[in-house]
């Protein structure tokens, strides 16, 4: 808790000193790993943009590759965990959809309940990710990370209540 608050407190500083790439730098600040200090964040961020060396007319694939590399480097562990969960939900949702297309949707309510459980959980998790992202702190002035997590739990409870009711 204290560490997170400290990290949030230090965030505005690096973004203030480097106005050229404000978004990329704030993304880097709240590392969950204790080894990363704000000082380290300021050094990694410029290096990530310099190593990729994108030009204005590089192919979309190259850009995507650069983003991936930057994501690996700059995303905090906790956010990565959320991302893995979201990826899992996408996989489960896609699986259900494929099943529905291949094997038919006979208990349609069951399919809808299962599918909307994944979709709903996905958007709730995405909301949690957006709300806890320090880059968006100015937008969510009234939503602290703890509050965001409470909202997430509240939303998930409603979601799964209706899903269980719907699935029969």
């Amino acid at each position, binding site marked *: 808790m204290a560490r997170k608050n400290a990290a949030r407190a230090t965030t505005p500083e690096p973004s203030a000193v480097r106005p050229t790439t404000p978004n990329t730098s704030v*993304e880097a600040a709240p590392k969950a790993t204790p080894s990363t200090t704000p000082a380290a964040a300021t050094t990694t961020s410029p290096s990530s943009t310099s190593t990729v060396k994108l030009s204005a007319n590089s192919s979309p694939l190259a850009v995507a590759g*650069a983003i991936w590399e930057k994501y690996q480097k700059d995303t905090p562990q906790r956010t990565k965990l959320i991302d893995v969960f979201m990826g899992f939900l996408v996989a489960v949702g896609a699986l259900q959809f494929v099943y529905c297309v291949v094997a038919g949707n006979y208990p*349609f*309510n069951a399919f809808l309940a299962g599918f909307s459980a994944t979709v709903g959980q996905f958007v*709730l998790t995405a909301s949690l990710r*957006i709300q806890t992202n320090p880059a968006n702190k100015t937008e*969510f002035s009234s*939503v602290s990370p703890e509050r965001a997590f409470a909202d997430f739990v509240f939303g998930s409870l*409603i979601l799964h209540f209706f899903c269980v009711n*719907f699935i029969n």
Partner: protein
Amino acid sequence: MSTTAKSTLFRDPASTESVRSILKVVILLTIAAAAVASRLFSVIRFESIIHEFDPWFNFRASKYLVKHGFFDFWNWFDDRTWYPLGRVTGGTLYPGLMVTSGAIWHALRMISLPVDIRNICVLLAPGFSGLTAFATYLFTKEMKDSGAGLLAAAFMGIAPGYISRSVAGSYDNEAIAIFLLMFTFYLWIKAAKLGSAMWGGLCALFYFYMVSAWGGYVFITNLIPLHVFVLILMGRYSGRIYVAYSSWYALGTLASMQVPFVGFLPVKTSEHMAALGIFGLIQLVAFVDYLRGQVPSKQFNTLLRALVILITVISFTGLVTLTVTGVIAPWSGRFYSLWDTGYAKIHIPIIASVSEHQPTAWPSFFFDLNMLIWLFPAGVYLSFRQLRDEHVFIIVYSVMASYFAGVMVRLMLTLTPIVCVAAAITVSSIFDTYLEIDSPEEPEEDSESKKAKKDKKETGGFLSSKAPFIGIYSITSKVGVVGAFSVYLVLFVFHCTWVTSNAYSSPSVVLASRMPDGSQHIIDDFREAYYWLRKNTAEDAKIMSWWDYGYQIGGMADRTTLVDNNTWNNTHIATVGKAMASREEVSYDILRKHEVDYVLIIFGGLLGYSGDDINKFLWMVRIAEGVWPAEVQERKFFTPRGEYKVDHEATDTMKNSLMYKMSYYKFPSLFPPGQAQDRVRGARLPAEGPVLHTLDEAFTSENWIVRIYKVKDLDQFGRDHFAVSAFESGKKKGKKGGMAGRAPGKRGRRVVRA
């Protein structure tokens, strides 16, 4: 109201704050009391009675719910309506209203206050109107400040446009739905402002309540996505919008599918596709927005182009596949009629025949909203001046609701809240600007500039900070404007009270008229007739009437009906229309086949009651013609000059129709010979009244408004009824002989045998 509080209590900020909040509570309670009180005219003038048509069904369903419990109600199959088909009532109604009153009934019993369910039903709408005023206050407070909120609550409490659907006894879905509409919108604004999934989830819960209460939930389903869409187009996408919309849509849609009547509609019909589409769009926008944060803008453009091409191809393929395979249903008829006002008249007469589906006449805007209607554009303009995200909502709502209110009379109801909100914003900002006179630091002539500066500081939050501030210095203009608006407000209250008392407080089950000496005379024919049915007919008797009276017969007479106001089966209604519009021989066949025991019609010719069946008759003909174009033709009911006549000029088809015969049967005998007069249509009737062969007059109410006929049984000797009546009238010329005074062709050629 709050402005006076602001001006007199400036001394100590802390006490000001607490006094203000107490004042707000008191004012809100007063508004709620006024809202409830102004809806009680009908209870005081008549009695605690359910009004109109649909409320009678809701009332009957509520009684069933209270008597049999929730699960029986959920699985209710009603065999006393739509004979012989029946109706899966539990799965084809919006249960929110009945469940609400049932819950109130149980709650009151739990605290040892056993209240009759009828009184709960009668007073539910006024009770909820107080809550609506409160929800409007909250909503408007988010837009401007609590002063505007209080004004909006007051407007909402007494605006006739809302009162028209929520007087005591008007126990219809709209009674609770408008409260839910406003509260859902308030929660949505709150969610979008804070970007909190909790408010989004609450919004989804109230959306669920709304879905369970009223078919108008589609308005929310489309308005919120439209708001989001407009925000995205304005380049105002933000994480808050994503969180609010995603959590609302994901939870709300899943929740709405729990209502049996809605079922899978949210994923299958076009009305709901906009919400789904925006949901997909906002996911993409959020993803793209995230990517934008990751790469410099030039590479971002390259990536964006690739993404746009990919997504377009995928979604286009998907849409084509779904449409070809028919997964997404086309729009339903009622929604087509929203876009093309002539659509229903041509294709679906049953929708066009309902008077509240007609386009709105322009005076009714002024009648229902009075001065609010000209304050409304000003309020929308003021929203444009600030144009935060929530003001975009006001603008979108105003545009959509104005259009729909112009298309359909009943949708005036959805326009009223936003008109109240916008008008309250206008009036409140006028008072903000002009009421500075009460400020204790009213400057002298020499400190003019200081005052201007102070004014700027105080009102700067409202006026755009870029525009130069123009203060109001002259006391005369302040007094003039404030005085004028106070007079307008007082006039508005008078207008609302007058409209409520004169136009919207009639139960329509009981009619009131004035005697020549000015005293009130109650015409209670409907209840008289329904009570007669209840007491004098067999428990399982089947009553045929036009569908308008189906719910009332079910509710008041407790008898089986063929068709009612839940117009789910057009063919069945057309059958009844055909029976009413055909010659007796044809009709008798239909009546026998449906085991009809009694036929009930409404006839206003004696009293001048214009909502009677002869005036509705053309709709019966049209609906029947839609199903049997060869047997029923509308043209044949008009005179060669194209007039709809009931007097001696009426066509033969008209004169021989069952409806005409039943309406005017024995009617001329009330008058001196040749003097029979229909007071609704102002027509002099032929001296010779129509003759009925297959029906017996069973009951006619005091003022002849309701007439009930018993369907004759088959003749014991196997003769047809024309021969029987000829025999009984003493003209025994043998079965084959022509009957005197009657065209030979009229003898029942179609012998009816069961």
